């Protein structure tokens, strides 16, 4: 368990400027992806006359609601490439951003509970290794050594039959990540504008030339959408559709405990994932609500099922109290992979569909999306994640392969 201290906040994080009447590019959404996009637009492409528009407060969406798990053990080549690129960036970003956001590479285990799980997991370990992603297959005894509080007895409903293990995976303090990006963006001259909701778009023919906002009209040559759960609402305003469905996803934390849980444990089959935050809370996530929703809360039975699974796997949790629960709105696609690239509207670009797993992708989403906005072309890492794949059939089906069931 990491004993790192929480970092001191720098005295100064970012300005709160008034929106200007025009920018070279506008990024919609001030979550991690929007901020990372602005950061790489400024750093890699020298575009600093840009704005990030956020309808609420900075990183108040999924960025500060997720369970902070970072890993790159995806099955397909396209996913492994983009998530592994993100993981490599996570490894250098604290230094680059001069802000320690407590990226803790404590490893992630994905448990297998059935013979089908075991086969799928061993296949994924093989695929990961071929893609240069660190991965191991652990038997139940090795699982127990890494996480002693796990129940590996074979008389529970879904016994632990082994696990995949990615040692370089881990967790990071998500809100600090957003602040780290925001501070650097601000230093480079990017305007971060909170309480500024995009309510429509200005178009010249099929080309976007500006955005309408709750704080006035802003002219711009390029628009990048990073609005997670609200991407399809924005797309509709711009006159096109996205193959996205928005669902509530919940998480919860316990009160603080002594360090008991040294790694991250995920289970697709019984659907719970657990880590212990730096301060000591047990952080747990579950599955999405089946139905569409924008209400930022979820169904109680999802929590009940998740807790039942957690208590069976970790019997000592039976005495832990839930401190708080909350929900975010995740944007899901039918192949469980993101959409990053061009849209039917000229000069408008979209980064969405990261669903339940986009926090880990934040740096690579930002880097590749910035490339797309700056050059008007896909980056080689986001090219396969185009909107066109739903027409060509070149889907990247990470359902199940991604080791979570949603």
């Amino acid at each position: 368990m990491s004993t790192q201290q929480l970092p001191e906040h720098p005295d100064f994080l970012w300005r709160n400027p008034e929106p200007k009447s025009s920018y070279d590019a506008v990024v919609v959404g001030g979550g991690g992806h929007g901020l990372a996009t602005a950061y790489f637009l400024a750093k890699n492409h020298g575009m600093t006359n840009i704005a990030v528009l956020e309808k609420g407060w900075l990183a108040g969406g999924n960025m500060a609601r997720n369970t902070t798990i970072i890993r790159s053990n995806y099955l397909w080549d396209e996913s492994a490439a983009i998530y592994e690129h993100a993981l490599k960036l996570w490894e250098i970003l604290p230094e680059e951003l001069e802000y320690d956001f407590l990226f803790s590479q404590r490893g992630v285990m994905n448990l297998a509970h059935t013979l089908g799980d075991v086969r799928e997991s061993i296949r994924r370990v093989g695929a990961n290794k071929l893609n240069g992603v660190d991965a191991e297959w652990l038997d139940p005894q090795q699982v127990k050594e890494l996480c002693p509080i796990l129940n590996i007895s074979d008389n529970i409903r879904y016994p632990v039959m082994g696990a995949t293990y990615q040692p370089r995976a881990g967790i990071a303090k998500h809100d600090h990540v957003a602040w780290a990006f925001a501070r650097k963006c601000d230093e480079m001259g990017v305007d971060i504008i909170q309480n500024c909701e995009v309510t429509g778009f200005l178009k010249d023919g099929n080309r976007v030339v500006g955005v309408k906002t709750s704080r006035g009209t802003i002219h711009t040559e390029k628009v990048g959408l990073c609005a997670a759960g609200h991407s399809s609402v924005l797309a509709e305003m711009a006159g096109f559709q996205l193959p996205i469905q928005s669902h509530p996803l919940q998480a919860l934390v316990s009160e603080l405990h002594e360090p008991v849980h040294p790694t991250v444990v995920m289970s697709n089959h019984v659907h719970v994932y657990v880590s212990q935050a730096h301060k000591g809370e047990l952080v747990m996530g579950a599955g999405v609500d089946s139905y569409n929703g924008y209400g930022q809360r979820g169904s109680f039975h999802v929590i009940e099922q998740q807790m039942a699974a957690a208590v069976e796997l970790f019997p000592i949790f039976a005495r832990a109290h839930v401190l708080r629960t909350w929900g975010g709105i995740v944007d899901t696609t039918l192949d469980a992979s993101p959409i990053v690239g061009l849209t039917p509207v000229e000069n408008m670009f979209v980064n969405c569909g990261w669903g339940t797993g986009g926090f880990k992708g934040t740096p690579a989403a930002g880097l590749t999306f910035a490339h797309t906005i700056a050059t008007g072309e896909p980056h080689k890492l986001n090219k396969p994640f185009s909107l066109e794949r739903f027409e060509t059939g070149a889907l990247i089906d990470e359902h199940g392969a991604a080791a979570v069931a949603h």
Partner: protein
Amino acid sequence: MLLIPCPNCGPRDETEFHYGGQAHVPYPENPNELTDTEWSRYLFYRENPKGIFAERWVHSTGCRQWFNMLRDTVSYDIQAIYPMGARRPDLAAAPAAEAGTASTAADSTTTGTAAPGTAATSIAASTTSASTTAPEGATK
């Protein structure tokens, strides 16, 4: 948690039901004539309104019957229940007062980003787009 008024069994807990996604999406009449774009519309594109949504549910652990429902995706209020195959009710003309309520009233303890203005626009958008149920060319 939703309290869903099954038209056959009465109000039951959400856990007794399964969700079937958007209602009124007919299988293309002439599948062989669809272009790739039209196929992708039929297979992958569904409405995702922030506001009233017409969707299908099945009472899987009860009467096992499918039915349609109009639900607000922000407040989760259930506004109407109607049979499969029936036309989507026009809420403005005939408000479905008795159609049931959700146990999650608008008492969100979270950040309440659901701007009524946005929801209202989506309602307008989705009621006018009755044609979105079939991909273009589906009835060729």
